[in-house]
């Protein structure tokens, strides 16, 4: 079914610049280089694939290469990307934790209501298109069931119509989730500080009061943007402005 969906994606003439076989062979070469300890070589190969192809496993591999090359902020960016593509992935979370231990800032997160990793997995999963596909199925099923119900009589008809209604609701919910997921992947609202030391200021201009200092590898939520400055929010709720150049959007 996946391959069908994949083929459907390709149908309207969207052909990636790098074909799948090339991408697979590059990934195999990069994995071999990584295994032999040539992390810089592996990184170059993985990056070339990432230009045209996306997957949580690929972003995770790039993060690992950066980590091995002691480029901790870049590694964190890649791990966060992998987590966006596959929320709740155990291996990514473990490595991200190790990478975070090497950063300087410790930000206490505000207590928020969070469900566990299995909920994340259920909501996200490895496949970004999962909810769009579920929506499609629910939608189609709803109309098939409705048609069947209209053909029958009595209780069967009532039951059938209510099932169809449920399917419609499920489909709409799925589309909503798919849209939310897509927005999170395509327009991530978080960034990683890349510069060793950044002043976070109260206003978007040089020389404004420095509210706090951030060091490379710290994750911030992104807000409004204004002439090269971006409003950032820390996990502990602190807000300030910093130059957009000091950040890498996930």
């Amino acid at each position, binding site marked *: 079914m996946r391959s069908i969906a994949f083929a459907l994606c390709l149908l309207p003439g969207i052909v990636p610049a790098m074909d799948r076989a090339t991408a697979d062979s590059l990934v195999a070469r990069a994995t071999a280089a990584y295994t032999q300890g040539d992390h810089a070589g592996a990184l170059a190969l993985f990056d070339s694939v990432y230009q045209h192809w996306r997957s949580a496993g690929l972003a995770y591999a790039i993060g690992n290469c950066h980590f091995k090359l002691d480029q901790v902020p870049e590694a964190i960016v890649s791990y966060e990307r992998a987590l966006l593509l596959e929320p709740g992935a155990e*291996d990514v979370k473990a490595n991200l934790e190790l990478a975070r231990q090497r950063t300087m800032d410790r930000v206490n997160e505000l207590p928020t209501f969070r469900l566990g990793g299995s909920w994340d997995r259920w909501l996200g999963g490895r496949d970004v298109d999962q909810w769009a596909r579920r929506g499609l199925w629910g939608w189609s099923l709803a109309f098939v069931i409705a048609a069947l119900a209209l053909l029958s009589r009595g209780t069967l008809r009532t039951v059938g119509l209510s099932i169809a209604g449920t399917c419609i609701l499920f489909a709409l919910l799925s589309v909503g989730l*798919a849209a939310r997921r897509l927005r999170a992947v395509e327009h991530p609202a978080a960034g990683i500080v890349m510069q060793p030391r950044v002043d976070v200021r109260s206003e978007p201009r040089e020389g404004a009061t420095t509210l706090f200092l951030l060091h490379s590898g710290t994750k911030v939520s992104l807000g409004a943007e204004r002439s090269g400055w971006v409003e950032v929010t820390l996990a502990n709720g602190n807000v300030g402005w910093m130059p957009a150049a000091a950040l890498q959007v996930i």
Partner: protein
Amino acid sequence: MMRRTLLLLLAGLTWPLLAAAQEITFDARVDRTSFEGGASIRLTITLANAQGSFSNPDLGGLTVVQGPFESSSFNYVNGRMSSTVSRTYVITATRPGTYTIGPASARVGGGTLQTQPITVKVEKGSGATSDRLLNEGQQRDRDLFVTISLSKSKVHVGEQVVATYTLFSRYPNLELSKYDLPALNGFWAEEIDRGETTWEDQLRTVNGLQYRVAVLKKQLLFPQRAGTLRIEPLRITCVVNRSFFNRGSQVEAMSNATELQVLPLPPNAPPGMQGAVGSFSFSGALDRDQLRADEALELTLTVNGSGNLKLIEAPALDLPPDVERYDPKVNDRISISGNGMSGSRSFTYLLIPRHAGELVLGPFALSFFDVQAGAYRTVQAGPFTVQVTPGSGSGQAQLSRPSKADVEVLDTDIRFLRTGDLDLRPAGHHLLGSWAWWSGMAAPVLAFAVFLVWRRREDQRAADPAGRRRREADKVARRRFKDAHDALKRDAREPFYTAMNKALHGYLGDRFGLGAAELNAAALERALGERPDAAALARQATDLIAACDMARYAPLEVKPRQAMYEEAITLVQRLERP
């Protein structure tokens, strides 16, 4: 030592009196063939049992410090006569290298005797005092001075240097009352044991003045940090000219200060480098290669060579975690001499394998900086294989020890790459919002709309019973007369009437349950029952059948075939309609 003996028959002829004359020998010898620069050796040339003069040899660059001293002896014992003439030189060299002392020649009788050339080697002295130091010392005090000389002026961190403290004195009588050794900052020092301080045999001439020389002290220095390390002057206090009549006078002397250039070790140190500098070999041994679990095993790792042996720490053992180990016992066999520190240091580890199986220990590595090569080197010992058989199992220890242990986390590292399919997707393309997705969403809606339209039409038809019956009767009639219709189209006469006959008989028979024999107007009318037009219909049907039969068996057609067909259809439709 080279010696050459010549027997001259001529000698015997010249002195017939000496019936028991000794052999004539002429040789040259030195007391040492290798010495440090600045030291001196004795060269002795001896002519035995002959009269004659001999020439001085070519010293090949060595300089004569004293001499030559000539001596001769003559013995007459039990009628045997022997005589020797010898000449002694005290010679020295300041620059290291290899020197050849050429042959000396002697004319004896009518012949010439030659000594063998001698090769001597002058080494770079560890304690040789350079002329510059001597000149400086002499300028400080003409009668008494001390020098500190180093065997090398430029070394790496950890490389050994010999420091020699030498006293030069012109006082005939001197007592050393005290000396303060300079503080050695940045060095790790090791004394070289030279026994009692004594005056050297030879006097040393500096710019025409002769001095008595005594080496006060020799030290082995290991610089601990890079940079220019300075050794402060040595200060001594002596009492001179003390005699029975004189209490003597106190004289102070200072040495020079000296500096040592210490180069840092190169940056690309191998991982196991712990600061060993020198030239080492590394070996290991096990006291046995087979034992039971929980028995003890001794592993001895030995570092052999010269360098800062005493600073070598026990190499870290990379052992399987289920092997219990104890701190190593260090055993030194190190000698410290003017040539530096050399010998061996061995580490004995007590190991207790806890589980049975083949146990591979090592290989163990020792990394050091090789001074000669100017690069790091890593030497390996092992690996060693030990067969561990299961423990006796009867001992208390076996019972008290838990059979399971927690898995020990030794280190943390990131997890490895994903090994399976990476599940790649084209970048920037998603199902949601795509062409395919919109079509997929629209298709069921359109299909449902089509379904609704169809259903509506069905409902409308169901709401008109008369029309429906008409349509159904029509359908039945057309089905029955299909063959006849075909034949009509083909314009085939005979098959048309056969089909018509067959269809009418079949229809009426099936419809009213009448056999072919019973098919007549009366029976049909009965079968049609209550209908007002029953009689007319029955007659029409039988007429039609009769007309068909007639046309079938006789070439007589009552009506055109098309009209006949239409009539039959109409008849069936009317019969079908209630």
